[in-house]
C-alpha cells in the first residue's frame, strides 16, 4: 500500500504562516465596525479561507487521487451544508410562522 504524498517541510511552514496571518487579520477585522451584517461575513470569509488551506495542505486533499476519497470529501462538505440548510429552514421559517 502506498504511503501517500509527502510534502516538503517548507510547504507546512508557509501554510502555517498563512494561517497565522489569517488570525491576525481576523483580530484586526474585529476592531473595525463594518456596516450591517458584514462583520460576520468578513469573519466567516477569513475562517473559510483558513479552513480550506488546512483541508488542502495539512489534510493532503490537494494530492489525493482515489475516487473514493473524493466521494468522502464531497459527502462531508454536503453534510455540512445539510446541517446549515436544514437549520436555516427553522430560522427563515420563523419569520413566516
Amino acid at each position, binding site marked *: 500500500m502506498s504511503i501517500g504524498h509527502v510534502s516538503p517541510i517548507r510547504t507546512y511552514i508557509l501554510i502555517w504562516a498563512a494561517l497565522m496571518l489569517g488570525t491576525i487579520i481576523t483580530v484586526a477585522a474585529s476592531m473595525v465596525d463594518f456596516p450591517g451584517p458584514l462583520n460576520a461575513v468578513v469573519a466567516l470569509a477569513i475562517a473559510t479561507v483558513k479552513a480550506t488551506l488546512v483541508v488542502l495542505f495539512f489534510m493532503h486533499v490537494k494530492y489525493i487521487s482515489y475516487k473514493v476519497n473524493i466521494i468522502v470529501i464531497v459527502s462531508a462538505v454536503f453534510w455540512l451544508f445539510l446541517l446549515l440548510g436544514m437549520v436555516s429552514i*427553522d430560522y427563515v421559517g420563523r419569520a413566516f410562522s
Partner: protein
Amino acid sequence: MSTAAAAPGSNYLTNGSSVSSWLLTKDHKRIALLYLLSVTFFFFIGGIFALLIRLELLTPQGDLLQADTYNKVFTMHGQVMVFFFLIPVVPAVLGNFLVPIMIGAKDLAFPRINLLSWYLYIVAGILMLWTLALGGVDTGWTFYTPLSSQFSRTNVVMAAVAVFINGFSSIFTGLNFIVTIHRMRAPGMTWNRLPLFIWAHYATSVIMVLGTPVIAITLLLVGFERMFHLGIFDPALGGDPLLFQHLFWFYSHPAVYIMILPSMGIVSELIACFSRKRIFGYSAVALSSIGIAVIGFLVWAHHMFVAGISLYAALVFSFLTYFVGVPSAIKVFNWTATMYKGAVTLTTPMIYAIGFLGLFTIGGLTGLFLAALGLDVHVTDTYFVVAHFHYVMVGGVVMAYLGGIHFWWPKITGRMYPEFWGKLSAMIGFVGFNLTFFPQFIVGYLGMPRRYWMYAPEFQVWNVLSTAGATVLAVGYLMPLVYLTWSLRYGPVVGDNPWGAVGLEWMTTSPPPTENFLEPPVVTWEAYDYEHIKEVPVAY
C-alpha cells in the same frame, strides 16, 4: 506482544499473558475484550443511578434524595449510559472482535488507532468518574443551554470535556471500520456477500465520522460560553439557545442509530442462523441500514417541536421522522419473513433476538406517536418519551447485545455458557423490561412529567410497578454476568462452529489465532447460504 508470530496451536488469548501484552496489544480481539470489561463497568455504574431513580420514585414524596441530588442522579445515569455504554457497546466490543474476522482480514486497518481509541475512552471515563466524585452534573444528559452555559453550578465543563474526548474514541472506531471494510475484504468477499452485521457497522461508522465532530464542537462552545462568556447560545450575549438544540440533536438523534444499527446487524445474524435460512430480502436489509443512516440525520428537530421552532420546519421534520420508520420497518418485516417456514430453534441468542423484535417494534411505533405534531405537544417531556426511548435504546440495544454476546461467546472464549440459565435470563430480562417501562407509557400519557423527584399521588401505582420491574430487570442483567464468568473456567469446551452457522468467523478456530486465519480465506459462496451448506454438528 500480540503482533508477534503466534506459536503453533496458540490462540489470541494464550499468545502472551503479561499485563503489557494486553495493555499494549494491537490485536483487535484483545482490544474488544478490553472494551468489554470497560463498558460492563460503566453499565453497572449507570445501573446504580437507575436504581436510585427508581427507588426515589417508589413514593410520590421526595423522601430518599434531595431535589438537587435527584437532578444529578438522572443526569449521570443518562450521560454514563448513553456516552459510555450504549454508543460504544456493540461497535467497540462485538464490532471490534468480529468486523475483521467476518471479512477475512487479519486485523483492522489501523491497529494502533484502535488501541488509541480504547485509551481515549478510558481517559474520558476517568474524567467522567472524577466529575462524579466532585459532585456530578445536573443539566440532564442533553446539556441544554442556558442551564449548562450559564446557570448550573455543577461540573459542566469537566463532563463536557469527558464527552468531547470520548467522541474521538468513537470517531477513530468508525474511521477504522470504514477503511477496513473498503480495503481489507478477503478475495471473493464482494459487497453483496458481506454479512449484514458488516453492512450495519459500515452505516454506523458513517454516522460516527460525520456526526460526532458536531457534538464535540458544540460542547466545546458551551464550555467557551460558560468560561469566557462568548455569545453563542445566550440571548443576552447575542446568541440563540435553540442553536444549541439544533447542533446537539444533529448528532444525538443519529446517535440513537449508532446504538441501534449495530444491534440490528446482530439480530440479522441470529435470526438467519436459528431459522436456518438465508435472510429474506438481503439487499433490502443491507440498504435499509444505509437508508437509516442517511434519513436519520434529517429528523433531529422532532426533539424541538415545542421549543419554539418554526411551524414550517416542524412540518418538514415531522414528515421526515415518519419517513425514517420505513427502512426500520423493512428490517422488521424481513426478519419476520426470514423466520416464516424456517427451522426456528429457540436457543438463548434467538430468544434475545425475538425479544429485540418485540421491544424494538414497540419502541419504534411509539416514535411515530411522537412524530405527530399535535400528539407530541401532549406527551413532550413526559414519561411517555422516557418509555419510548428506553424501548429502543435499552430494550432494543441491550437485548441484541446480550444475544450477540451469547452467540459469539463460544467463539470469543472457546467455551459454552449454560444454555438453561441463558434462556432463563433472556426471559427474565424481557419480562422485567416490560414491567419496568410499559407502565411509563401509561403514566406519561396521563401527564406525569420526566425529571421530577416528586409526583402526584395518583401516579404511584404505575411507579411501583415500574420499580418492581426494575428489580426483575436487574436480575435479568446480573445473571449473564455470573454464569458467563463461571463458564470461562467451567463451561464445556466447544468446537469451532457450535451453532452450525455460516460466516467466516465460524471457519476459524475457537478462540481464533492472533492472525485470525491460519490460511487466508477465499469466499466462493453467498451470505447466509444455509440452504446449501453441508450439515454441521450442532452443540445445542
